[in-house]
């Protein structure tokens, strides 16, 4: 049976009142987002707002010397492109597709028309933005104060919350880039999680074996972000929330 795509696979769109949803529906276009696709570069002008229906989009910052660090991720619980309705039009970070997915994209003209109405769409967009700010802030705190082991647990939990299964297709090199650390550190931390029976890692595929175990091991940062997303997006919850 052919897969069925619907904008309501994105939880923000699904939470819109039906009249609002029907108004934006003609302006939504299904697109494929392959792994590694650059959605926008630092300072680049965005053309569309994206509502993922699966997968993970990663926002990260690349320093002048080439080091990078992930600022936040979004999946089907959110959207990509807040600068389009916040008024800035561009942003200093970069966004890439971390896990391949589909998304619905909305043109800036449709977005601005709907946002200007001041109704449910605007409320949804602003509440999501507040949730995103929380994630960014907590990521900053976590990276500064918590161990790499805890950071890896947080990253794994936030990632699988946004995926259909418990598998992540990801190399340790990529994880190191996301966390802004050396690959050797990720290898060691991942090895410890594997030894503890919490994950298995083979040929670029990480499988979470013991989610409760990861939740016990992670710092408070995961719960802070998860609880804030729950509070702000009560109808648009990530999986596992």
């Amino acid at each position, binding site marked *: 049976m052919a897969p069925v795509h619907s904008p309501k696979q994105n939880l923000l769109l699904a939470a819109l009142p039906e009249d609002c949803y029907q108004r934006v529906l003609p302006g939504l276009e299904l697109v*494929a987002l392959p792994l590694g*696709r650059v*959605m926008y570069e630092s300072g680049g002008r965005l053309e569309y707002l994206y509502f993922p229906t699966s997968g993970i989009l990663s926002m990260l910052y690349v320093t002048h010397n080439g080091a990078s660090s992930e600022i936040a991720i979004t999946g089907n619980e959110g959207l990509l492109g807040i600068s389009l309705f916040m008024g800035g039009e561009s942003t200093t970070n970069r966004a890439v597709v971390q896990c*391949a997915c*589909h998304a619905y994209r909305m043109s800036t003209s449709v977005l601005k028309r709907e946002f200007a109405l001041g109704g449910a769409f605007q409320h949804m967009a602003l509440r999501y933005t507040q949730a995103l700010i929380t994630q960014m802030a907590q990521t900053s705190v976590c990276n500064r104060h918590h161990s790499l082991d805890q950071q890896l647990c947080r990253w794994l939990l936030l990632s699988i919350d946004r995926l259909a299964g418990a598998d992540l297709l990801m190399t340790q090199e990529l994880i190191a880039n996301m966390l802004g650390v050396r690959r050797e550190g990720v290898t060691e931390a991942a090895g410890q999680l594997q030894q503890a029976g919490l994950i298995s890692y083979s040929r670029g595929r990480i499988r979470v074996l013991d989610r409760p175990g990861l939740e016990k091991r992670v710092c408070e940062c995961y719960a802070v972000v998860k609880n804030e997303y729950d509070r702000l997006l009560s109808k648009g919850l990530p999986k596992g929330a």
Partner: protein
Amino acid sequence: MQVELYCATCTKPLEFKVPELEDGLWYTNCAACGNGTELEADPGSIEEDLATFHTVGVFHA
């Protein structure tokens, strides 16, 4: 821009706008023979409006 692709099984032109995704693999089903053809994304540039794909072979679910 997406170039025309051909079914890995029957070589008829593939008609698709957006490929499907399963377990990290892109594919599309042939309207003529029903079999799946695995696709891989082209190493595109950010300037391209939409991702484009090339064929890899028969898709095995």
